[in-house]
């Protein structure tokens, strides 16, 4: 998501192997979605604070003051142009850099000590490997919800808060207590909340995975859907948000239960659906592979679909398909899109996003509106 923020800092290494940042400015979603502009391919770590100060200082000088909707870095970058804004940032940085005498690096070194890696355990994993082969429920969860750890005896666990039919991203107080206990017992007391609204245990020894999984299943936290269709980001929408123009949560719930009933989500594979209940785009629908934006058309909820969005380092703002859909039409519309994808993908390894990039909007528009409807929609 570093390309869709006011200032995005992407960790990279230069040719010499030193760590630093690609600096991207002027991204943002909301009513004016924009992918940010790279103003520095490689910024050494020690230059970070003066450089970010330079960006903010230039923005403070140039930023729009006449219209609060345009008082955003993305508007300033867009109106000033990449060449000019880069030059101004570099000039300001040259003035500011000498003022930093190393105090920031001392503070950083202090902070680093608080993030020391845990004392990794060295223990056999053979029992885990045997269990993985023997238990299909565990295997399905492990295949979906685990990521590789740099220590081969360990795994990174994502606990899904997206049980089919539940409010995406919600956990009860009991579940939170259980997760905290499990993190303490099996996760070196470390847990993180992801922007996908799941919980991550970053260090779990593989020998602990079967018992951890069993405890999660018992608490209703064993859903094996990370990165799949039902791992939806939905904003609070009309149910909780005073700014909303439509509901988000029930759309997410119905999508999850509908495709669960069809048993299609594992076949469909990696897919990011993101739902916002108004133009403010808190659900980041513009960068969902499938984005759904709930609007109000003369007092009636109407859902606009965007396709092909991507929030990663290959960031793209999704394209609008055409006229929106009523509340009771949105789930069937998404099914038409995904059935079209299943029919046109070259093989099961071609993801929705890859297929979309290969064939473009056309076939999906036809699936949504039909040949005739497509003309009307144009």
């Amino acid at each position, binding site marked *: 998501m570093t390309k869709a923020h006011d200032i995005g800092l992407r960790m990279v290494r230069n040719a010499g192997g030193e760590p630093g940042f690609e600096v991207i400015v002027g991204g943002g979603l909301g009513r004016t979605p924009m992918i940010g502009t790279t103003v520095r391919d490689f910024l050494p770590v020690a230059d970070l*604070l003066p450089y970010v100060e330079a960006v903010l*200082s230039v923005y*403070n*000088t140039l930023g729009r003051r006449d219209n609060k909707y345009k008082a955003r870095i993305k508007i300033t970058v867009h109106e000033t142009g990449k060449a000019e804004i880069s030059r101004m940032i570099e000039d300001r940085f040259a003035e500011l850099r000498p*003022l*930093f*005498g190393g*105090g920031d690096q001392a*503070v950083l070194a202090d902070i680093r000590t608080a993030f020391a890696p845990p004392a990794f355990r060295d223990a056999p994993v053979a029992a885990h490997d045997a269990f993985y082969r023997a238990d299909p429920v565990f295997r399905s969860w492990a295949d979906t919800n685990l990521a590789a750890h740099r220590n081969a005896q360990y795994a990174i666990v994502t606990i899904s808060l997206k049980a089919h039919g539940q409010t995406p991203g919600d956990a009860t107080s009991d579940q939170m207590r259980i997760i905290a206990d499990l993190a303490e017992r099996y996760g070196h007391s470390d847990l993180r909340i992801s922007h996908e609204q799941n919980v991550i245990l970053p260090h779990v020894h593989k020998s602990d995975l079967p018992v951890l999984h069993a405890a999660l299943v018992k608490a209703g936290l064993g859903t094996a859907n990370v990165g799949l269709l039902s791992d939806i980001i939905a904003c609070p929408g009309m149910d909780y948000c005073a700014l909303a123009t439509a509901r988000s949560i029930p759309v997410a719930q119905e999508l999850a239960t509908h495709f669960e009933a069809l048993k299609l989500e594992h076949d469909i594979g990696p897919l990011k659906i993101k739902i916002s209940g108004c133009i403010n785009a808190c659900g980041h629908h513009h960068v969902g592979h499938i984005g759904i934006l709930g609007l109000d058309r003369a007092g009636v909820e109407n859902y606009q679909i965007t396709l092909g969005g991507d929030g990663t380092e290959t960031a793209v703002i999704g394209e609008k398909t055409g006229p929106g859909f009523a509340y009771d039409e949105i789930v069937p519309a998404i099914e038409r899109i995904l059935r079209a994808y299943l029919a046109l993908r070259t093989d099961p390894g071609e993801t929705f996003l890859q297929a979309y990039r290969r064939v473009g909007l056309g076939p999906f528009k036809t699936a949504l509106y039909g040949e005739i409807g497509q003309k009307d929609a144009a």
Partner: protein
Amino acid sequence: MSILVTDTGFLPAPPADAVPLAGIAAHRGVLDLAPTDDPAALRPYLADLTLIRVAFPVFSDGRAFTIARRLRMMGYGGALHAVGPLIADQYAMARRLGFDAVEIPDDLAARQPESQWLFRADWQAHEYQARLRA
């Protein structure tokens, strides 16, 4: 009339015999800057100026903060005043960025009395940016 706020409290603001940036060639030591002015234009005059007053049209327009900081980075050592309806919470930030004092209108001084500004006169306490720049 207006009020000059300093670390020791309120004073009546003395009248300023100031020129705008356009008239800088004929200055008598005191200059008024607008938030749209580029401090780089002052470079040849910096040593002769004794007071620079930078305008804040509204408290939420922070351009004068960047101007103050840039003037101090350019080596300006004379007096520097923020002029306009800043609020008391911003006093510490104004001081940290290089302003010596803030000139506020009388009605604001009535709404935010001296005690509220003195409350932020300890602007050097918890100045984390100074720690990072050390």
